[in-house]
């Protein structure tokens, strides 16, 4: 006899319930207790959608802008926004501004550790805030695009298009960083004090979107998501998406970085509550991005995944003074779980090490709550992906013979 799930729901059924206002939507935090109390099969029957959230610095982010044609027309080649150089190797007035781009005159790490007060992420945040931005552009001039130079102010309200397009967001899981050397180091994982004096981590753990769908059974190309305060979509798997051949814990969650997503959304809908520039001392500029993904509970296996709690998710601890920068494949120093991390102390080599976050669990929770409200109000429904993302087959077997 073929093994089956006890509960089998379709996207259409769930969306029908959302439309009628009958759907049961809970956050990934609330799902933990529900499954504890009534078990996965009942939970899968009762709960239709689990909402997730994360808010952290995601360097691989940026925006496509179309700044509108000039008179006479111009094919902009070398372009600056508030002195930050942006990429102009596209059609006439299209450009891409990367979150980590810096102005030419930034001292970088010359005065160590550099402060990185301003960069592409700040331009993106100011655009979303509705502030004016100085555009400066140069061109070589052609018969059809004769203009060679321009300086003007742009504003999100007067440019044609502003699309956030992030090649890699929302790492499924992430490293815990420590420093075994004898000097303080400044990394994208924050300030790390010498001799394992502190540890930093950056994942929303039990609330994190991709940890709640560890084998990408519902999350895929075209999935509608919360992106930076507006509605966005998953465009594709993110760069460095690598969910194959890695260690996993009992509910399927990877014990290392694993999967990623590429996200896209209209910046005109976004808010600086959920998109914020980050100046990371000694490292550079990055962008805090808030993302929330709804997970339709199609069957009890999805209910099982989404019941995962911080104590069941492991993160690898790496040394960021020599192991990580070396680029060599090195075994982690240890694995710790997110419950320990969030309590603020982990144990490494029998030493108690204070741990602090770099991503905001507070905001992650806020995002999961907002997404829940959006779905309840019927302003957002779950989308069946055009294609699910590349992923190994689930090792979590809970189908039974009926």
């Amino acid at each position: 006899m073929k093994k089956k799930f006890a509960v089998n729901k379709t996207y259409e059924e769930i969306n029908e319930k959302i439309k009628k206002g009958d759907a049961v939507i809970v956050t990934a935090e609330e799902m933990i207790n529900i499954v504890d109390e009534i078990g996965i099969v009942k939970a899968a029957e009762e709960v239709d959608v689990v909402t997730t959230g994360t808010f952290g610095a995601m360097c691989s982010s940026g925006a496509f802008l179309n700044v509108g044609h000039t008179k006479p027309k111009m094919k902009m080649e070398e372009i600056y926004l508030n002195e930050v150089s942006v990429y102009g190797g596209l059609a006439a007035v299209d450009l891409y501004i990367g979150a980590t781009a810096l102005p030419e005159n930034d001292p970088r790490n010359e005065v160590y550790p550099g402060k990185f007060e301003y960069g592409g992420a700040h331009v993106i945040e100011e655009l979303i805030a509705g502030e004016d931005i100085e555009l400066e552009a140069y061109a070589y001039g052609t018969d059809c695009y004769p203009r060679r130079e321009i300086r003007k102010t742009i504003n999100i309200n007067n440019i044609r298009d502003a699309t956030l397009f992030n090649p890699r967001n929302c790492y499924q899981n992430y490293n815990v960083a420590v420093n075994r050397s004898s000097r303080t180091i400044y990394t994208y994982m924050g300030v790390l004090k010498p001799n394992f004096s502190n540890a930093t981590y950056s994942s929303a753990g039990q609330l994190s979107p991709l940890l709640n769908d560890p084998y990408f059974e519902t999350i895929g190309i075209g999935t509608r998501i919360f992106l930076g305060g507006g509605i966005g979509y998953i465009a594709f798997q993110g760069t460095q998406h690598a969910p194959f051949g890695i260690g996993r814990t009992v509910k399927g969650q990877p014990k290392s970085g694993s999967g990623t997503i590429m996200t896209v959304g209209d910046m005109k809908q976004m808010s600086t509550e959920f998109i914020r520039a980050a100046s990371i001392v000694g490292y550079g500029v990055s962008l805090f991005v808030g993302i929330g993904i709804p997970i339709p509970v199609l069957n009890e296996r999805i209910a099982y995944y989404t019941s995962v709690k911080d104590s069941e998710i492991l993160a690898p601890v790496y040394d960021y003074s020599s192991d990580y920068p070396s680029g060599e494949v090195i075994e982690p120093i240890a694995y710790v779980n997110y419950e320990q991390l969030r309590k603020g102390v982990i144990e490494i080599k029998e030493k108690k090490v204070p741990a602090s976050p770099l991503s905001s669990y507070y905001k992650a929770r806020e995002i999961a709550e907002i997404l829940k409200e959006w779905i309840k109000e019927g302003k957002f429904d779950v989308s069946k992906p055009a294609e699910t993302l590349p992923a190994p087959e689930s090792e979590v077997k809970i189908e039974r013979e009926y």
Partner: protein
Amino acid sequence: MKESSIRIVLTLPKETWDNPVICKLIKDYDLVVNILRAEILPKMEGSAVLELKGTSDKLQKAINFLKSINVKIRPLELDIIREDEKCVHCGACIAPCPTNAFHLNAETFRVEFDKLKCVGCGHCIAACPTRIIYSPDF
């Protein structure tokens, strides 16, 4: 005249590295100078933490002299302000703080700032990615 003392952090520009600045403070301004920490290297920007004692008049004149040779001065104990409503509660300020003045609330997951614990060292200022921690003296 009444004596008083101040504790200040000096940043000395490259050009002053071989200037006998401290000697001048003692001889020309009649101050008692206690060097709490100093890092002066040839042809590089230097820094020093000093305690200066003297009459307020002489202290003021000494400060003016330091400023005239482009030495940057700030008080040792900074008055730290965090713009709470702009905080994203990321936690990047927690590790650099030597006194645990920032703390992650285990219920709300907000990063709380306990100003009473702050000793004004300034380490958190550059560590906050959203630049909402600052000091009016800095």
